[in-house]
């Protein structure tokens, strides 16, 4: 089922390896000296303030912004190579798509299979199965014939997650997959990620909900323009580290969402 997983099955090969990445936007530094190494079969949380460079990190991993320094390997290969092998699926924070585009939910999820099809992109039975399963996973099967523009924000988010699932990649890069989805879907997605991890995939998730990190992230990366701390959640996700990450904010964040500004 998961061809792309076979590559790099040996857990010695890092799924994601980023060495001293530096990214700047027209001279404005967004990320410097960021290093990260993720093994196969783990869920890693990426945590940092707004503007800390989480999305930038994802874009660098996908080769969408060119790092001014550093190099990145996915499954021990160059990013381009890994992408051609369908080894990496990416769901951006904002899809930035034209929502009046004449495609159905089914069509969109099928786009996740394009890379595995021949040049004409004619779906085979296996592709249809993969799409069906992916839609089932995110509970969008009933809405598969809907035009993508006629979904709610959260449903659309699930559709794009389904596309990433249908790709059957061994590395999933999900930029804030939980923003704007309901509690039920949140739970569903968490279960899904845990299952993926057990299948040997590696999932990098950025999130602003710190309880997610404690609940199901094996590893955590704390960033603020660079990797401040990184490692097993139980060791790294301490109140001191979190305080540091959020620029001196008291770590009572951990005990629940901030309710008012008086904690400042």
């Amino acid at each position, binding site marked *: 089922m998961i061809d792309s997983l076979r590559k790099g099955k040996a857990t010695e090969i890092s799924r994601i390896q980023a060495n001293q990445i530096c990214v700047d936007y027209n001279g404005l530094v967004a990320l410097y000296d960021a290093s990260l190494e993720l093994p196969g079969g783990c869920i890693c949380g990426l945590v940092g303030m707004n503007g800390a460079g989480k999305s930038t990190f994802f874009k660098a991993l996908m080769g969408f912004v060119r790092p001014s320094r550093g190099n990145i390997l996915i499954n021990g290969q160059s990013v381009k190579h890994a*992408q051609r092998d369908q080894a990496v699926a990416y769901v951006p924070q904002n*899809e930035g798509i034209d929502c009046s585009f004449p495609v159905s939910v089914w069509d969109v999820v099928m*786009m996740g299979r*394009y890379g595995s099809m021949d040049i004409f992109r004619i779906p085979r039975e296996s592709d249809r199965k993969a799409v069906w399963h992916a839609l089932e996973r995110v509970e969008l099967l009933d809405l598969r014939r809907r035009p993508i523009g006629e979904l709610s924000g959260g449903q659309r988010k699930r559709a794009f997650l389904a596309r990433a699932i249908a790709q059957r990649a061994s590395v999933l890069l999900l930029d804030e997959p939980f923003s704007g989805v309901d509690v039920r879907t949140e739970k569903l997605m968490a279960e899904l990620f845990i299952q993926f991890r057990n299948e040997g995939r590696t999932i990098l998730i950025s999130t602003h909900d710190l309880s997610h990190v404690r609940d199901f992230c094996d590893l955590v990366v704390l960033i603020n323009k660079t990797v401040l701390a990184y490692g097993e959640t139980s060791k790294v996700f301490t109140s001191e580290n979190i305080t540091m990450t959020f620029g001196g904010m008291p770590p009572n964040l951990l005990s629940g969402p901030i309710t008012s500004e008086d904690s400042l």
Partner: protein
Amino acid sequence: MINQAFAVAGPFTWLFDPLSHEFMRRALLVSALVGAVCGLLSCYMTLKGWALMGDAVSHAVMPGVVVAYALGIPFSIGAFVFGVGSVALIGFVKQKSRVKEDTVIGLVFTGFFALGLVLVSKIKSNIDLMHILFGSPLGISNADLMQTFIISVIVVVFLLIYRRDLMLYCFDPTHARSIGINTTFLHYLLLSVLSLAAVAGLQTVGIILVVAMLITPGATAYLLTDRFDRMTTLAIMSSVISSIIGVYISYWSDIETGGSIVLVQTIIFLLAFLFAPRYGILNSQKSIP
């Protein structure tokens, strides 16, 4: 005399009589062919938001046509070179300056077009300016017919091979890149195909109106469906039908062919705009309460 002909051939004289003329058969053939090609491409143009780009490329081919005639090479080669050249120049100026894209596009294509006009008046040749500007399917030469045919085949072949990739590129270029599709290639493919289609369209409706061929059928189809495949079929159909009706009207009422084809297209668009099942203004109002 004319009455007699009507009496003999019955009510379909208006349909069949023109077909007895060689020039009309050719005009219908070339118009339908160009209609189909431009109709297919128009889906990508409208979805990608490249109407202005289509306008730019079609105007920018003008000096290429003149130079090609002067040099005695097939006009399509000259047109293609200048079409692609204009696009490259637009990209270059946009990248190297802080001027906004639509400004750069407007600036480059008018510059090219002006160059074409100057060249026409300077290079004394047998180019009929009116034919370039307004098209003349009724008087198309064998060589031009052949060129248009070859161009059409090239465009259709590439659009069919890459139809899914191009759709994905228009819809979500980020995803296209993340699954290893070469989007730079697709970008230039679409631009090259656009240049070629503009050259083909120039044969029937002329440089000035080519852009209508490249966007109106797509816009019409867009109002009629939510499915991409159906959109391409509808765009091709409306485009071919407009071309054929346009040529007939032009024949019977002796009006300019390019104008009549585009006018039919516009009328079909207006009909869709008013009566389309979901997105027509008359129907969408019903669903408000």
